[in-house]
């Protein structure tokens, strides 16, 4: 079985305030990579192909993915800010090129929280989808996958025919760390760079970002001396009582 894992480079969500934001592999995608590695280690997959879209600067995150154990990587050279539909269309062309039995990807990217690419990709390909999974097992000689989904109401177990799109939730696994031997092996693994033209897709963003704004600054709180004073303030100033 061949697994394609699309991943996105995002600003490090764990960087402290004021720290220069380094880019990292989107944490949900890291979980997808980890799951693909575990599937391969169980002997159920033979090849893991990582794919990403971005300029050469994302090669650093590609190397992290390769260092974790992804076999090879493809980068679509495009530095535009693409919306989910454009990303899904590019990925559709890549899936057509690679013909995997499974596409494993994060349920969303932590920078824009769109949570749409997996679903759109499944729609474009006409493939089944299992989203927000916390467990995956293969059935019937790997022709189907049984996935446990985390929903608001509880756990839902579904079976999808392969090939399918599967998106990962937080509790699926804990990704391994990049080891130095992995890093050194990654230097020898190929990164293939393609353009949208070479893939035969033209994408235009359907959405435009008009403006971005910081959340309003919160005024500093005040200390009150007594419960009575608090009640007065809640009634008269905050007007919440």
């Amino acid at each position: 079985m061949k697994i394609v894992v699309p991943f996105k480079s995002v600003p490090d969500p764990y960087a402290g305030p004021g720290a220069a934001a380094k880019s990292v592999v989107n944490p949900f995608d890291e979980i997808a990579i980890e799951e693909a590695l575990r599937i391969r280690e169980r002997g159920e997959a033979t090849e893991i192909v990582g794919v990403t879209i971005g300029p050469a600067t994302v090669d650093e995150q590609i190397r992290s993915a390769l260092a974790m154990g992804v076999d090879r990587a493809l980068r679509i050279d495009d530095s535009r800010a693409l919306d989910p539909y454009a990303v899904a269309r590019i990925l559709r062309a890549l899936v057509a090129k690679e013909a995997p039995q499974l596409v494993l990807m994060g349920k969303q990217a932590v920078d824009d929280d769109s949570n749409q690419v997996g679903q759109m990709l499944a729609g474009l390909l006409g493939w089944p989808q299992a989203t927000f999974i916390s467990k995956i097992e293969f059935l019937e000689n790997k022709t189907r996958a049984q996935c446990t989904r985390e929903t608001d109401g509880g756990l839902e177990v579904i079976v999808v025919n392969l090939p399918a799109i599967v998106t990962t939730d937080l509790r699926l696994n804990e990704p391994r760390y990049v080891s130095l031997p992995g890093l050194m092996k990654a230097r020898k693994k190929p990164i293939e760079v393609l353009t949208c033209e070479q893939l035969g897709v033209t994408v235009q963003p359907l959405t435009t970002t008009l403006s971005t704004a910081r959340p309003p600054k919160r005024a500093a709180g005040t200390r009150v001396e007594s419960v009575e004073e608090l009640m007065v303030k809640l009634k008269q100033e905050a007007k919440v009582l």
Partner: protein
Amino acid sequence: MDFSWSDQQRELLDAVDRFAKEQLAYDMIENDRHAVFNHDAWMKCAGFGIHGLLVSEEYGGLGQDPITTVAALERLGYGCKDNGLLFSINAHMWTAIIPLVYNGSEAQKKKFLPGLCDGSIIGGNAMSEPNSGSDAFSLATTAVKKGDKYILNGSKIFVTNGPIADVLLVFAVTDKSKGASGLSAFLVEKDSPGLDLTHKIEKMGVRTSPMGEVFFTDCEVPAENLLGKEGAGSWLFTRSMTWERGCILAASVGTMQRLFETCIRYANERKQGGQAIGKFQQVAGKIVDMKMRIENSRHMLYQCAWAAGHRKAIYLEAAMAKLQISESWVKCCEDAIQIHGGYGYMVEYEVERELRDAIGSKLYSGTSEIQRNIIASLIGL
């Protein structure tokens, strides 16, 4: 000398930073109190690639050069507060792996190096004896050849990793009449008949690094475990000791850097007399001196590793780096306690432990006095 990092080195060092921060940031107070060796962290570090940094790939290592290796250890010291674990790793690398890399036969390297790199074999070095410390070659432990074995008798003291070791590099007298040229080195495996590794020694600092006494009672060592030639022990010791001196305190430079940053934060936060204590000249001066010591230490460490990587003799550089870093480390820790006031003296603040951990560095791998002797003799005194 150019100490700027290539992209590959930077990538490697960033990975060490991240690894230390994410995998080695465990609580230390209890482990220190109860002298707990963290075997899980040992295996993590080995799996991550630390132990084998300097070993070539064919024996399971990463084939890095000395300067990348010491810089990686420095990052590890910055991110990991378990100075004892780092000391155990360093003893393993510089006093067991290095002698094997340079003096091991092909068979010995094949047998031990892959396990020493992946962490499954723990190594150590047994030179010091109750009556042989700074005067290192005045050993009493003997090794007598009998057929295809050597029979060892005697005892060793202060053996780092001794109680947990799978293999120890042991120095013993094979020919008393030849003095220093009558010493030989043996790879003694833990299950050797007549070997007793069970005597633990409790110490002031680096408490999470196990240390023990080792006893040999007609201890049988196969002749093929002789490292180098018979009589080559003192030469071999001097060679590996030079590496040890130059590099064993690499992590401490990172430790000092972390301590320095802690002090800056504290000096900016703590207010007395209506101002941050960092605004008092005497407090600021201590932190400035700390910065000077750290930069000097790092420079000497890199200079030594750079020279070693360029196959230059490093006797002088190694002794200077050892002296500079150990004395800086102790002084930084003392100053850090002073800056933290009473809090610095309390266990909870985790500064006092740093001082206890640092003090041993003026003793092992040759005391400060011995380093000064070496430097004096090399500069013509």
